[in-house]
């Protein structure tokens, strides 16, 4: 009777709850129509007299014109850096260098909303990520290396560390400001000056950063920024620098290494990856699903350490895939500036085409594709979060780096098989292990050939933790005390 009564009074569930749009305001960002090269503390017109347009990938709307720096421009910037190195910076008291780095860190924190909005505007990443990840981490990097600037002798006892001179730095488009921080902070802490080239598609936060440098009163020429495409990068590699630090594709990394062979210039490379995210059947399942999502859909999968190969223990395969698919339906794809957006725009048309090509290959090779129902904006570059199941190790989507929101799922039976499959790749940047068994985490970590191994989490970064690859994922480490070493040379001291 009571039951009938209750049934009669059942309150129907609603049919929809649309979150009203919640865009972060663009007003805080002031864009110039046309930018110059930042050399010797000034914005100057390029001698090449060539410009290109950078756009908002979410709308294809043009944002500003940037110089396409030629070899002459690059040489001029390197000269400015060389002057600054010789005339003051290399001889400055280490605590002085720390002072500027601390200032930069604090100004970045103060202006973080402005930078976050610009990062999302120019790169397409969700404001949630630029606000909560990119900006706090960029500032943290400057804070961290500021602390090392006057303690180098303690970082490397008995080795008398010396700066190299001028560092040429080439960074990618996936974390524009964060990669700038990873490069500039250790270089300056070690006493070098730099010429940095931001990625062709995402130069705007690097140029806004020049404003921070002025505000911090960093001596002119210590940091110089040149914009342009791959040709500008090639010119920087060929220029009179003492070191090249590159983050980007393995293909370009190899070309740089060939170019620098025999020149005596130092080199560090942080290249591609095809990381295995390994799920054991005793893991905390719902949290593993979050880790998988964060591993591959964070920043639209434009992450070199993305967990793009999911290795699932067969005994848990079905419930895990069910949970993953259900979770994908709640991902919100759209306007990067909306605070509720989980996946933003693909960074460029070129990248979108590459993703589309590999996804087509995956379908053709016989993998099963799942994409949640999803309304994409009409303009701009977009790709629906995608999962491929039934993937064989031999498929292109299991071998090649896609650099997009596309996950390939493979299975394994035993820990040995998981290690074997995880290591069966030319890359070796990162890996994830999900298990509640502590001993297994350590066992796996000893055997996985990857520079970074996350246990029961993924895509977590900290300035104190070194980051870098095995095999074709590159060499050299960024972050931590290790991250200073590529910017120093050492005179061995005997008898210490």
């Amino acid at each position, binding site marked *: *009777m*009571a*039951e009938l009564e*209750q049934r009669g*009074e*059942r*309150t*129907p*569930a*609603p*049919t*929809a*709850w*649309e*979150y*009203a749009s*919640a865009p972060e305001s663009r007003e805080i960002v002031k864009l110039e129509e046309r930018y110059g090269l930042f050399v010797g503390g000034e914005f100057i017109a390029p001698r090449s007299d060539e410009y290109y347009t950078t756009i908002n990938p979410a709308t294809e709307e043009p944002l500003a014109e940037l110089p396409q720096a030629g070899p002459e421009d690059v040489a001029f910037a390197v000269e400015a850096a060389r002057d600054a190195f010789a005339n003051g910076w290399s001889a400055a008291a280490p605590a002085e260098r720390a002072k500027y780095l601390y200032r930069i860190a604090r100004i970045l924190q103060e202006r973080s909303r402005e930078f976050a909005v610009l990062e999302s505007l120019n790169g397409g990443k969700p404001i*949630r990520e630029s606000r*909560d990840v990119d900006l706090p981490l960029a500032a943290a990097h400057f804070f961290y290396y500021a602390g090392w600037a006057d303690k180098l002798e303690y970082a490397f006892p008995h080795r008398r560390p010396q700066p190299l001179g001028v560092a040429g730095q080439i960074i990618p488009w996936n974390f524009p400001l964060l990669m700038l921080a990873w490069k500039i902070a250790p270089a300056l802490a070690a006493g070098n000056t730099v010429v940095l080239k931001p990625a062709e598609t995402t130069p705007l936060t690097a140029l806004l950063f020049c404003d921070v440098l002025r505000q911090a009163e960093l001596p002119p020429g210590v940091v110089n920024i040149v914009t342009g495409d791959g040709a500008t990068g090639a010119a920087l590699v060929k220029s009179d620098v003492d070191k090249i630090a590159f983050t980007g594709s393995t293909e370009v990394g190899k070309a740089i290494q060939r170019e620098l062979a025999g020149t005596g210039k130092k080199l560090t490379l942080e290249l591609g990856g095809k990381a295995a995210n390994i799920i054991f059947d*005793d*893991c*905390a*399942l*719902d*949290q593993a699903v*979050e*880790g998988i999502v964060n591993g591959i859909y964070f920043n639209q999968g434009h992450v070199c350490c993305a967990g793009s190969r999911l290795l699932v223990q067969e005994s848990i395969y079905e*419930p895990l895939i*069910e949970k993953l698919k259900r979770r994908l339906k*709640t991902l919100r794809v759209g306007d990067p500036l909306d*605070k*509720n957006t989980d996946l933003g725009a693909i960074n460029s048309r070129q990248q979108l085409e590459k993703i589309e090509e590999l996804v087509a290959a995956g379908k053709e090779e016989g993998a099963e594709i799942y994409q949640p129902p999803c309304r994409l904006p009409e303009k701009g570059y977009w790709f629906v979060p995608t999962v491929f199941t039934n993937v064989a190790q031999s498929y292109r989507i299991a071998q090649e780096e896609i650099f997009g929101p596309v996950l390939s799922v493979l299975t394994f039976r035993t820990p040995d098989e998981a290690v074997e499959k995880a290591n069966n790749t030319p890359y070796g940047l990162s890996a994830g292990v999900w298990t*509640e068994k502590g001993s297994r985490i350590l066992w796996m970590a000893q055997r996985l050939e990857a520079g970074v191994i996350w246990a*029961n*989490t993924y895509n977590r970064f900290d300035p104190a933790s070194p980051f870098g690859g095995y095999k074709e994922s590159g060499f050299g480490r960024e972050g931590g005390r290790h991250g200073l070493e590529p910017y120093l040379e050492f005179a061995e001291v005997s008898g210490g």
Partner: protein
Amino acid sequence: MAQAPALPTGFELPLEPRLPRIGSVDQVAVEARATDLSRRSIKREAKLFALDLAVRMMDLTTLEGADTPGKVAALASKAVRPDPADASVPSVAAVCVYPNLVQTAKERVADSGVKVASVATAFPSGQSPTDLKVAEARRVVELGADEVDMVIDRGAFLAGRYAKVYDEIVQIKEAVGDTHLKVILEVGELGTYDNVRRASLLAIAAGADFIKTSTGKLSSSATLPVTLVMLEAIRDVYEETGRRVGMKPAGGIRNAKQAVQTLVIVHETLGLDWLTPDLFRFGASSLLNDVLMQIRKEKTGRYQSPDYFTLD
């Protein structure tokens, strides 16, 4: 009505075989996920929707030694008509009172549709012999309660005597019959998310219609991660068996913002189906007025003085 699985009582080890996969919960990751979800920006019509829903899902509660018929009558009137100045504000789901005040509450809510819930089973500690708890639960139903909120025996649970906890819930479920049974886990005393998940699955397997976080008598109670862990347990049971179990966070939800965040977690964990008072409730005493203030603000664009909202 969902039936507890037919299993022998007094069998001490059987959690795994009688439940779906128990699994475990990673503390760091579940807290991070709850924080992420709490950052959803819910504005304008989406917010108004959530606030209206929060009112309809509320179990307006007073559980004090000092409760009197006068106090409960005032509360019950407020439950029926939360905002006398705005007739579009719905009634709450239920009033929740001690057994001695059930009849007073029943008379006051009359045929308004507002339910009367009462606590039983040696609330809040649960530290009494099972036969007394069963008798109390049965009596509460006789007194006219539409819903019974029982507490689990945390002493037994923490001693690893899961079967005792389980059997007790089964017996109480039998005693209350078709009356809606909410099982309070008192998460603040369970210590870990693993235990919260374990206790949730145990209560559901034993026949709970709802699982509820807390008695409201402890300072640590219905946090967002705890709510998330319990909702995930409910989701796993639903996926495995098709059975829909309700959820009631109680204690610690004091303002409208927390209520909206909680509803976002329900929405993104279990979907729209659970956004109804049949499957989700808020147990609260001071939450209602803040929600009413926010509703008025969304409708008029202005905040108004707390003096315009009744204290009951």
